[in-house]
């Protein structure tokens, strides 16, 4: 046995647990962990991350669809352009120099850290993050939906704002996902929530429906261009599925502020190590 299967499963598990606890997804932790700790080629790590996106999407969509949290119409409209971006992004990723990919990934991790700090502030200031997203009026495409507020139990309506802008940004989000192997948690969810005015839970569930296809489009490119390790990918998938499940359970018991602080430290330290690796 030449492959460290146990380490692949462990990295997938830790990435899945941490990622699902703070809602960022596993890719942002898994890709740097593989490249720094195990010395895996970043392109193989990205392709493994993209395939594991498909696995986590399948698992989460079946749960979210039962709770009627997925907005399929919005998801289908946005994913049509997201996959175009994902095909393009992963195609560029295949030909990009590994060091350039590492620099881009480091930039993404710093962006994720900023988003986490922003979320941390918002949670501290507003107390209840959910209660801000109730009803929005307007919308070019007339996409609307309903959702049940967890606190009040009331059904509330919303209309998606600035759909054309959302579609445009989706293409960009797909390109980033395809090129760097990260899911929607970091780009798509904030985009739908901030630009489109979609309630955060609906945005999160709809994004998990979309990332399955984004991951498929990106993974198929890396797969066809032979940037793919079967054993590593399989180990990571098993680990990340177990990790996502345990992460969602642990998240309810652990202080979210503490979690975000831990992940912030991990992201900043990993960014530093990635930069050092590029420089050496």
């Amino acid at each position, binding site marked *: *046995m*030449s*492959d460290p*299967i*146990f380490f692949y*499963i462990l990295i997938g598990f830790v990435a899945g647990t941490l990622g699902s606890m703070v809602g960022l997804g596993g890719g942002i932790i898994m890709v740097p962990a593989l490249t720094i700790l195990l010395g895996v080629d970043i392109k193989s790590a990205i392709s493994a991350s993209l*395939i594991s996106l*498909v*696995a986590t*999407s*399948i*698992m989460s*969509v*079946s749960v979210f669809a039962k709770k009627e949290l997925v907005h*399929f*119409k919005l998801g*289908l*409209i946005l*994913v*049509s352009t997201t*996959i*175009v971006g994902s*095909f393009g992004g992963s*195609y560029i990723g295949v030909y990009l120099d590994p060091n350039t990919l590492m620099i881009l990934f480091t930039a993404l991790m710093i962006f994720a850290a900023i988003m986490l700090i922003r979320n941390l502030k918002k949670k501290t200031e507003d107390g209840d993050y959910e209660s801000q997203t109730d009803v929005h009026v307007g919308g070019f495409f007339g996409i609307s939906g309903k959702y049940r507020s967890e606190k009040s139990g009331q059904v509330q309506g919303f209309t998606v704002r600035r759909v054309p802008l959302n579609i445009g940004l989706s293409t960009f989000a797909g390109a980033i996902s395809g090129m760097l192997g990260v899911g929607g948690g970091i780009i798509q969810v904030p985009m739908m929530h901030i630009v489109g005015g979609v309630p955060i839970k609906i945005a999160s569930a709809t994004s998990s429906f979309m990332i*399955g*296809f984004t991951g*498929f*489009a990106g*993974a*198929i*490119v890396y797969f*066809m*261009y032979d940037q793919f390790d*079967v*054993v590593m*990918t*399989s*180990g990571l*998938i*098993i680990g990340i*599925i177990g990790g996502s499940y345990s992460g969602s359970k642990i998240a309810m018991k652990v202080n979210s502020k503490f979690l975000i602080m831990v992940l912030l430290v991990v992201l900043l330290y990993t960014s530093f190590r990635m930069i050092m690796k590029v420089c050496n």
Partner: protein
Amino acid sequence: MRAGSVLSLSFLLLGLAVYAALPSGGAHEWEWRNGYIYLMIGIVSLLLTPLMGLLAFLIFSIRQREFTMAFLIVTLLVLLIGGTWLIHPGH
């Protein structure tokens, strides 16, 4: 979707177990290679699961006379298949 994911995970677990338990070469070479094939089946079936789900969703939408949804699903399928064909190295 659930059947697809269970099938994929079963193959992945089976493949990893075979791959980890048996050494390459020697008397176990054939079984070890089978482990690799199980892993490939697991990954391919995992990749095909969202497409199967989409097809099931298409049939459901047509039955419910939700033609806008059906149109969006067909568009997505065309983009996925067309994109794969366009980006193929042999193309």
